[in-house]
């Protein structure tokens, strides 16, 4: 499927989702949907580095919070409480994305020359360093947190939460299209060689460090963009919850549960796990929903190492001449016949 066509389909699905949410008529659908869409972006972004390159990032919360706090910084610098929307949301997302992307690049430059585990640990460390900086930085609220006022309604769209939902929906579409584009490009093949055997890739002339830096930058930038609207969603931003480990665990669990080799995996994982969490939060408690994520993650990595996609593939491969099997061969053929 060509990318423009895919984009059109995605936008059509997004339009259906938006109008379905409007049709539900309950704003809770938007609040819950926003969280799930935010995780679609986060898990897709995580997967660009984690799934395609095989480098585990435990610091999703750090990149997400960077985006959120860059919004707060811009709000304090330019905006004021009488004019909450003086800077448009897309501009805020751009700022958040650029900042997170640059931090991702620097982070990758420091650690990616080492073994994978060091990168994972360093990302964990990055989250704490950034949290300490934010806690000690009074301009963005410090440990007290920061309040963001938002206008009640947005012209043409209606209530503000509808606008936020729409923005996040479009970002999710963008993230999926980017992930799919990478997957099918030279870049994606380069990433796959790094994941499968970095030493061999390096020996064959793949510029592994440069590719990994591209991956951390794109992944970080997308996470930052997902974080940028968050202060407007939550209204009161506070370091401990913005840097919370639940962002890190969810953005790892969702791709791993769905399957990491393709853009579909994080989407499936997020929709399943995200909805499950929303339901569990409402019906049981938010502590139980984290326990649920932990248990599902452990069970999946042990029982279904390639996630739901892996299970589906496994099922299809026992039926010769199927659609998935044929498409795989097609996708692989340019590599097989150089």
């Amino acid at each position, binding site marked *: 499927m060509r990318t423009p066509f895919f984009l059109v389909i995605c936008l059509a699905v997004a339009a259906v989702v938006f109008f379905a949410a409007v049709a539900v008529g309950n704003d809770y659908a938007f609040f819950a949907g926003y969280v799930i869409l935010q995780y679609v972006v986060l898990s897709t972004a995580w997967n660009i580095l984690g799934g395609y390159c095989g480098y585990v990032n435990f610091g999703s919360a750090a990149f997400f919070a960077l985006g959120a706090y860059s919004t707060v910084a811009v709000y304090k610098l330019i905006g004021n409480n009488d004019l909450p929307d003086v800077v448009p949301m897309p501009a805020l997302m751009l700022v958040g994305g650029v900042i997170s992307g640059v931090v991702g690049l620097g982070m990758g430059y420091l650690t990616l020359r080492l073994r994978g585990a060091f990168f994972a*640990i360093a990302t964990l460390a990055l989250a704490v360093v950034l949290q300490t900086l934010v806690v000690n930085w009074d301009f963005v609220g410090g440990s007290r947190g920061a309040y963001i006022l938002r206008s009640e309604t947005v012209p043409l769209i209606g209530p503000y939460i509808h606008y936020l939902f729409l923005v996040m929906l479009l970002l999710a579409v963008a993230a999926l299209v980017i992930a799919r584009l990478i997957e099918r490009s030279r870049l994606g093949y380069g990433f796959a060689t790094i994941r499968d055997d970095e030493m061999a890739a390096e020996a064959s002339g793949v510029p592994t460090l440069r590719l990994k830096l591209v991956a951390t930058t794109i992944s970080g930038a997308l996470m930052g963009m997902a974080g940028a609207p968050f202060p407007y969603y939550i209204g009161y931003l506070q370091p401990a919850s913005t840097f919370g480990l639940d962002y890190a665990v969810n953005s790892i669990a969702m791709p791993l549960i769905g399957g990491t080799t393709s853009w579909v995996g994080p989407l499936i994982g997020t929709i399943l796990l995200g909805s499950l969490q929303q339901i569990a939060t409402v019906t049981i408690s938010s502590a139980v929903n984290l326990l649920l994520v932990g248990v599902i993650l452990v069970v999946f990595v042990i029982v279904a190492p390639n996630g739901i996609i892996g299970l589906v593939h496994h099922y299809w491969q026992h039926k010769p001449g199927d659609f998935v099997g044929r498409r795989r061969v097609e996708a692989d053929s340019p590599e097989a016949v150089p």
Partner: protein
Amino acid sequence: MIFSFDLLVNAVISGILIGGFYAAVTVGISLSFGILDIVNIAHPAFIILGSYVAYIVNSTLGIDPILTSIIVTPAFFVLGALIYQVYYLSFERRGQESMRGLAFFFGLLFITEVSLVLYFGVDYRYVEAPYIGPTWHFGTIDAPLRILIPCVVSLLLIGCLQLLLTRSFIGRAIMAVSQDALALRLMAVDPVRIKRIAFGISIATASLAGAFLIIIQPVEPSVGRDYIGRVFAICVLGGMGSLPGVVIAAMLIGIVESLTSTFYGPSWAPAVSFGFLLLTLAVRPAGLLGR
């Protein structure tokens, strides 16, 4: 800011003492991550588990927390051996340990922490022991016993482990398995068994470290997260798998943290170890005493 020599000396001493405790926290990681190459990021969760065991026994039976932790080490050893067995069967044997293994331990971290939250709540818990209150004074130097005693026991523990690793057959086999598992197999030793024992020992140290932790400070389930980065910073800074390196690095980080919180305020202290970690990774990834 008024610079005071007494303050400086006291900060350095308390840094060394707390460093002794950090060494106990890190030694398990040093065994699993440094020697066995198992990235057990759930280690701090097991330490918190150790703290809660010490808390339960102390509050119901009134037994000394350190004594309790020594008594329950076999249970932690078995737990560690079991976890390694699952890890081996699910990941190491299939050669998928890098990413899925990490996710596995991350999941374990979450399960342990949230289970503790659900069962005990997020209240801070503490233990009672005769040495928690008093402080020894040497001239202008203060040494609170609640930090001094964990430090001494921790150094003893690491000394014993170092003896075990260098003098006993099992210990040498553990060092060997990290270098060449195939050669070990040729010597008719089962590398999986050796790794199982080593991982069991590494989790067993978490029991002691947990008791130290709850003696030094009140504990609630998410306290462990503060230690994730710190222990890896110490492990990497000391040089992977070197126990003397762990002690030196732990004291170094202890001193720097203590100086930072004395002269700049405690809210900056967490960034120190992580800054150190990033710096070490960038400048000298082999660590101080790296092989």
